[in-house]
């Protein structure tokens, strides 16, 4: 099988932020009328607050992972001696 040639994943710890918006699926936390804001029951304005929070999470991941090289496989410029530190 050719699938195990090399890992195709690039991991960054910032990616975990993308899981944060899933917290808004926990309905018991916000299924209530009070406190109201501008007349809106808590159920509604709480979920509206998640719109900018979601944007923030995705935005941070975008900015923080932007500088990572997206293409590997460039020629390896390190010489054998540089890699083999113990030889010196």
């Amino acid at each position, binding site marked *: 099988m050719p699938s195990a040639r090399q890992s195709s994943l690039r991991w960054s710890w910032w990616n975990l932020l993308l899981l944060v918006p899933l917290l808004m699926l926990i309905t018991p936390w916000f299924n209530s009328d009070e406190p109201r804001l*501008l007349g809106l029951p808590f159920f509604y304005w709480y979920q509206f607050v998640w719109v900018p929070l979601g944007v923030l999470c995705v935005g941070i991941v975008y900015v923080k992972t932007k500088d990572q090289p997206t293409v590997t496989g460039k020629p390896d410029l390190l010489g054998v001696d540089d890699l083999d530190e113990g030889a010196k």
Partner: protein
Amino acid sequence: MQWTELVVFSALFLLVTVLGFVAARWKAGDTLDHLDEWGLGGRKFGSWITWFLVGGDLYTAYTFVAVPALVFGAGAMGFFALPYTVILYPIVFLPLVRMWSVSRVHGYVTPADFVRGRYGSHWLALLVAITGIVATMPYIALQLVGLEAVLRSMGLNGAGILGHAPLFIAFVILALYTYQSGLRAPALIAFVKDTLIYLVILVAVIYLPAKFGGWGAIFDSAQAKFDATPAKGDGILLNGNNQLQYATLALGSALALFLYPHSLTGILASRGRNVIKRNMVALPAYSLLLGLLAMLGFVAIIAGVKPITNEATGRPDTNTIVPELFGQEFPSWFAGVAFAAIGIGALVPAAIMSIAAANLWTRNIYKEYLKKDATPAQEAKQAKLASLVVKFGAVAFIVFIDPQFSIDLQLIGGVMILQTLPAVAIALYTRWFHVYGLIAGWVVGMGWGMWLLYGIPSADGKRPHFGGSALALDKLSLFGWHPFAGSTLQIYVGAVAVVANLLVAVLVTVVARRLRVFNGTDETQADDYHVDEDSPRVKPVAVH
């Protein structure tokens, strides 16, 4: 007949018709006789165009009439559209850029193209293609439901076949400029559509609450109405039984949305990875809009809006409540603008969906089975013709068959498309699943999902089958065993079906790997998933 509305509507409709035809020359490449050009607009849309295009594609006219209608009828449950479109972008942020890169390297146009390349199996690709086409068709038909709701609100509410004539005319025009200009037409029209929608909704959510004594009064009157109805599931808050349904429906819909071929079309048409990433940050602006719009369903309650009766079916059509609300509360000219926003809002997704379905047909059925040596020019020709067939098929659906059928089918479509999650989305990350496992999982998830939907009666008890997507856990049965007997909780059918799909896929994969069954050839390489626009490895666009 409401003449002012009709004149404003027609003027704006004329404007987008001109745009649709002119679009063929907008940022034109060397040729339109290639799917990269006709079907993907030359794969070079930047951040702004992509924002309008994908926004116009995902937030459809049907969404804009059906979500407030659901809130009007059931209350809080209809608000699932907001969490759905908030969690959507974080979930798809990483997989979509991988999909873009691998498609750019290998010239994939459809999700089924990717599956074909990843697993070397035209059968698995065929399953994905058919699922995509079948799930998209009723979705196109529903755009017509949205368009027709507006036309009927303007007084074009004739009976019988003739009553559908305005809809038919609008669609012939749409079909012609999509045929000529391809994806560039909806991309250009989306600018008009989205500008109108933002304008209309912002005015409505500022003006209407002030008129009815603020949101507090609006929600109180809605609660009073829901208390008075015999139905148990409605109210301005969720109850003990439908919270799981709310969460699983939002999650399931978010996982499904970018498996739809038309969503992916907008992504593959973009220029590079950063365009997509920026859009994942910027697209929630539409979610905000959708949330505000959903609450207009409550405004319609306090305003005492009555859904008008569709003269073609003889039943009240709750999808008309938003158009009726605008017609009732705003001056005629502004109502005309609002109607045009919804009407044009139907054209953009209908065009993109028909292009996506046509691409699937051409790439994964026509070229795979009917004419293996088709040239790119022949592919483009075939796709153009297929887009016409798809659109007129959708019109026929609405005109000759009860529109309710399309609504049922769209409900089914969401569950169906979710069954391609392992073969399309998970395959972007790993090839661990065996091709036989994926096929077996698809069959089980699809079959069981359909069976469960078939057994759900509608909330008002009038229809015994396909009445909704909320399954009472009590009814869940595994070969006669009821693991949750007595539970009154409800869950989204799609979630149940996709879990079954994954379990079967894992089991069959383990067995197939034990027996060392050949798992197809992967033409993609690990690096393909990270290639960006400036890489020498991207495939040139539209080469013959």
